[in-house]
């Protein structure tokens, strides 16, 4: 059907579509490719006063280092500025946040999707309101307490805070996935003598993985991309990658080493790039799960 429609398209419309798509592709992809390419140059090329084409051919890079590509930015960021430490922290935070928030989330969302009482609905509405709170407004509530109890600055604190902030979203998303798993499945298990938890454990858990993986991806993104929370409640030694980049902007611009930040930015983007490559289908499915069914 859609192919029939496509064939019948008049030429101007076809040209317009092709032009529009090419423009969008350029807008979407070019900044990343440009920065990736530029991260292997020296600052004089990436921010070229003389000629913008220097960034392509690396004129200054050849003059300064003898080769058209240089790993100076990466070396400076990862070794000199110890970006590897931030990368390690990010790894710890993301893995913990995803594991904990999915454990909490699957239990809660399963109950919400199976309860027929009105309070389940209100629970979801309150979760939606919590989802709308900008995280930074909550941070000003955490700080006095965290300072008093000496919780400020540690990774576990950031992890549990991010888990809590992720909960509303996780619950909503998994709720819509659980709604799609037929109720008969666990109810028949309960007729056979299982308790509610046994039914969940032995009947629902084996079939819930597609939904859980999709939710895990978004949970990961929320933790990985967070700036507001991690910048405010982690001490300097425990910083994750995103606040570390922000602190580069403060320190390295004065030293004339923006290229550290450029290299760090590329390093942060690379895992996301790989993630989309492998999980494109799940991401697309996840974005639409809430919308198309709700």
């Amino acid at each position: 059907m859609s192919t029939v429609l496509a064939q019948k398209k008049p030429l101007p419309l076809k040209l317009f579509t092709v032009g529009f798509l090419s423009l969008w592709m350029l807008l979407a992809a070019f900044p990343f490719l440009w920065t990736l390419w530029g991260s292997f140059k020296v600052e004089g090329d990436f921010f070229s006063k003389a000629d913008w084409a220097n960034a392509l051919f690396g004129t200054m890079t050849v003059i300064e280092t003898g080769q058209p590509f240089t790993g100076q930015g990466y070396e400076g960021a990862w070794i000199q500025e110890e970006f590897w430490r931030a990368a390690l922290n990010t790894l710890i935070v993301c893995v913990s946040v995803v594991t904990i928030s999915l454990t909490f989330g699957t239990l809660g969302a399963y109950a919400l999707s199976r309860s027929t009482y009105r309070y389940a609905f209100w629970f979801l509405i309150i979760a939606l309101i919590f989802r709308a709170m900008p995280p930074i407004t909550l941070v000003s509530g955490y700080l006095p307490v965290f300072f008093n109890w000496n919780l400020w600055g540690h990774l576990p604190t950031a992890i549990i805070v991010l888990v809590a902030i992720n909960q509303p979203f996780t619950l909503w998303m998994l709720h819509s996935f659980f709604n799609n798993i037929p109720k008969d499945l666990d109810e028949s298990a309960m007729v056979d003598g299982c308790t509610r938890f046994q039914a969940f454990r032995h009947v629902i858990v084996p079939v819930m993985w597609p939904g859980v993986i999709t939710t895990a991806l978004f949970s990961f993104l929320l933790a990985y991309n967070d700036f507001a929370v991690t910048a405010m409640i982690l001490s300097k030694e425990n910083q994750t990658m995103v606040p570390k980049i922000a602190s580069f902007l403060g320190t390295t611009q004065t030293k004339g080493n923006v290229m550290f930040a450029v290299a760090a930015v590329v390093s942060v983007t690379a895992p996301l790039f790989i993630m989309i490559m492998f999980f494109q289908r799940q991401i697309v499915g996840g974005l639409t799960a809430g919308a198309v069914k709700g």
Partner: protein
Amino acid sequence: MKHKSFFWFVLPSTVAMLLFIFFPIVSVVVQSLYKSHEQVIVETENCGPFGCNKTTTIDQAATEALRAERPLGRFAGLETYLDRGHLATTEVSTLWQQSESWGQFMGRMLNLPFYKAIFFTLAYTFVVTPLTIVFGFMIAVAVNSAAKVIRGPLIFFSLLPMIVTPLVGSLILFWMIDARGVIGTALQVIAGDPSLSVKASTPLMWIMLMVYGVWHAAPFAFIVYYAGLQTVNTDTLEAAMIDGASRWERIKYVVIPHLLPLTTFIALIQLMDNFRVFEPIVSFSASAHATSLSWAIYNDLGGETRQLSSAAATSVLTIIGVAILLSPVVVRTYRDFSRK
């Protein structure tokens, strides 16, 4: 499901949300009503051979003791809300009396930090949200008409601006629009003005922040619409074609009504996300030209002097803003639910 098992199942996430979302909100409200103690100042008179002179010193011990005794600070009521950094009631009323015209009044009011922040936040929210929806819809229609083979790569690249960390994505754009970056240079050539700099101009900065906003959010609208387009009823489309509907009429009368519920969903998510605009202001170092509510809180919290009360007051005002923004949605959802 029985009440008891429901309770145990939702317990972990309820505890997490109570402790780290609900109580912080309460704590923010309380905090905003207090102010930190002023330092205890002792005046001592030193009388020497050349007469007496008075010196004032800060009594560290007494200050510490006072702070330990009442860690919240002194009760200030709505004082923080009404001061210059927030609602600035006195300043606004003086401005109102001094200004001759409405425009002059508005212009002066936007110099006050809170009004500057809220004005940009609202402008950003209500410009970026509709543009995102329109642009996302256009991409979805275009991708949907592309050959099946290239749709995968098209979606892959389209996802990039949305998935990439907002701070990182905005930095990438910021470096390109730098006066020495590639887009910055291109703008200078187009405008024919070699000294043109986005960083120095308020209108250009606003435009760039909003361009970033649309760039970042359009993929989301695109994906949702694209999925919606896959479920358009082909029978209805065919019937419309047989009845002689043109391509535009088919989009207008079949496709758009089908996608309307999705638009509500996208608008809701986008309003929530755009209202908290924050990262691009940090990476564009745009605070001289544009600030947002979230940025104002961040600015109060960061730095050497953590102005907790001021941040708390702005937070409460932001939460009220979110509540107003969300209220129509909640009312509607409630009506839908009651009807069921």
